[in-house]
């Protein structure tokens, strides 16, 4: 089918080096279509299909940003998106040459079935250095960073990573992960594709509506490997009722790999307690540290080895030192993401780039055989993160022996259920709400233990002091973020001049958040309402 589809692409003038954005909902045709792009010598880039919440203008802006960065040539999508996307294709100076609808090619029912095998999409000559795909390092609009990976980099990576995981012919990958994310694309699709093991793919939207379907698929298909972001452990442990589990057996699972959010021991413990009676072996729990810039994995806990957990003094950790908890103060359980996989090297460095020893928290810098060469057409961003062959990840962590623990981030990125959200995007959306003082908003991530993830919180300065009017304003703020497909879980309204400025003159997220926390939500307006100054 990929061959036939490649013929269709060629007929439409799609060829070597053309970047093709695939924006199609979960559908069996996406996989051969992706392969057809590769066969035609084009570069596929799978993008998220916009959900109903996202404002069409924001979606268009995101695509426009991508076309300016990545030099987007063709859009392969569904008819439903035509109206929203067409103006972008037709606008003056657009790099986008055309928009096509592969689901309609010779299939009256829209399924893509019945494509005749009469087209010859013979592959062009492809070398290991040729670009294979574009993946994006994060989800939100405007600030997406395109990572171009070569055939060689991806092939080397999945072979190495596959041997670390000891992938064999009996393995079966089961995944609900979206393909626009490196974990879904590289781990759950390219790896099984290259190693010749089956992969069962579930619609992410269906999974999140009904998380039990992943377990049903594992039981039915005898799944052995799954990758999950941390929140999924909590979601499945807490939100699947007992009577949906009667047919579930998880004995075949040998690797349940926690990746893409900080790994929380509480989530692992909850997951094992809930599913051990259904055959889940505690030893199947595993963890890895991965990112789009290194194709995927950097570290991985070896199979059949429980991830090391260390209980450390939380206060000392905040100051950058890893000290075993003496049992009297606040404790943080840190879960190991394992040792480096072959071909990867990590240095934990301080702010001046000096390497730190064991048990000191610093930025994680990575050298990898499958490292990207830079963000496509984004030299200034590349220069920020890629220096002397090392990729500075922006993640904070520490080394302990040969194992690495990831504990936080240098950048203010908020990770909600595996999706990276840039506070700048949220601040811009909230800052335009009438009643909010323009430019006087900060957004940050709040730990949400029940969700096993972070949720977005904002602090917004306003002159609106009346309680009823504030309630309406809160709702307007939440709605403004909905238009960029971000859910705000908490809104702190504060009086003018409340936010603390950083040295650069902009409101500081950390300092302002600390101020709210130290005052307490109930007392934020007390002085103002009492007529005093804040």
């Amino acid at each position, binding site marked *: 089918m990929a061959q036939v589809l490649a013929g269709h692409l060629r007929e439409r003038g799609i060829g070597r080096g053309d970047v093709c954005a695939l924006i199609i909902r979960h559908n069996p045709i996406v996989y051969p279509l992706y392969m057809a792009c590769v066969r035609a010598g084009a570069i596929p880039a799978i993008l998220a299909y916009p*959900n*109903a*919440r996202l404002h069409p203008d924001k979606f268009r802006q995101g695509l426009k940003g991508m076309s300016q960065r990545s030099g987007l040539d063709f859009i392969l999508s569904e008819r439903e998106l035509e109206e929203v996307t067409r103006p972008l294709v037709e606008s003056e100076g657009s790099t986008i040459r055309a928009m096509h609808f592969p689901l309609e090619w010779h299939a009256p029912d829209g399924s893509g079935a019945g494509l005749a095998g009469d087209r010859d999409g013979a592959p062009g000559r492809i070398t290991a250095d040729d670009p294979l795909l574009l993946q994006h390092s994060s989800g939100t609009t405007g600030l997406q960073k395109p990572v171009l990976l070569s055939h060689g980099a991806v092939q080397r990576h999945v072979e190495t990573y596959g041997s670390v995981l000891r992938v064999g012919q009996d393995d079966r990958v089961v995944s609900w992960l979206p393909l626009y994310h490196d974990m879904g694309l590289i781990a759950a699709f390219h790896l099984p594709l290259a190693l010749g093991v089956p992969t069962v793919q579930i619609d992410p*939207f*269906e999974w*999140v*509506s*009904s*998380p*039990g*379907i992943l377990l*049903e698929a594992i039981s039915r298909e005898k799944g052995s490997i799954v990758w999950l972001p941390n*929140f999924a452990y909590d*979601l499945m442990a807490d*939100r699947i*009722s007992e*009577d*949906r589990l009667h047919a579930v057996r998880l004995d075949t699972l040998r690797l349940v790999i926690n990746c893409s959010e900080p790994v929380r021991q509480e989530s692992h413990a909850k997951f094992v307690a809930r599913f051990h009676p259904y055959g889940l072996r505690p030893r199947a729990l595993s963890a890895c540290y991965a990112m789009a810039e290194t194709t995927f994995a950097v570290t991985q806990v070896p199979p059949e080895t429980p991830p090391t957990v260390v209980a450390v003094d939380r206060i000392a950790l905040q100051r950058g030192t890893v000290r075993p908890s003496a049992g009297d103060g606040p404790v943080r359980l840190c879960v190991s993401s394992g040792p480096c996989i072959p071909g990867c090297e990590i240095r934990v460095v301080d702010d001046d780039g000096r390497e730190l020893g064991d048990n000191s928290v610093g930025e994680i810098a990575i050298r990898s055989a499958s490292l990207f060469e830079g963000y496509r057409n984004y030299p200034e961003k590349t220069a920020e993160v890629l220096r002397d062959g090392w990729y500075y990840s922006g993640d904070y962590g520490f080394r302990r022996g040969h194992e690495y623990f990831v504990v936080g981030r240098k950048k203010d990125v908020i990770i*909600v*259920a595996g999706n990276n959200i840039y506070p700048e995007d949220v601040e811009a959306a909230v800052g335009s709400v009438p009643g909010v003082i323009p430019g006087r908003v900060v957004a940050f991530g709040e730990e949400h233990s029940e*969700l096993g993830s972070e949720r977005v919180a904002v602090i917004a300065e306003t002159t609106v002091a009346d309680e009823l009017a504030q*309630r309406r304003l809160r*709702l307007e703020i*939440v*709605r403004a973020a*909905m238009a960029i497909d971000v*859910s705000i*879980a908490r809104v702190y309204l504060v009086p003018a001049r409340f936010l603390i400025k950083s040295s650069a003159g902009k409101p500081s997220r950390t300092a302002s958040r600390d101020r709210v926390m130290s005052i307490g939500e109930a007392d934020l307006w007390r002085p103002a309402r009492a007529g005093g100054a804040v």
Partner: protein
Amino acid sequence: MAMVSEELKRVILETLKLDEWDLTDGTLASEVPGWDSLSHVTVVLAVEQQFGVRFASREVIGLRNIGDLQRLVDAKLGGARRA
């Protein structure tokens, strides 16, 4: 066309911690503050609990709007109980 019952409205609003929101037959989850893909399963569980019913995975996946949810609840209750 199903009318959205007060009981269904109340359980949805309480789950989402909303004081008031106009929920009608055609309202989509994506239009309601706080009702995102992550909270969806919580809303569904709360509805199941409130009405003492159980939905199958494919029934949940097939829901397009609040009217569909109301009809699903009604079908489970066999039309015997409406608030």
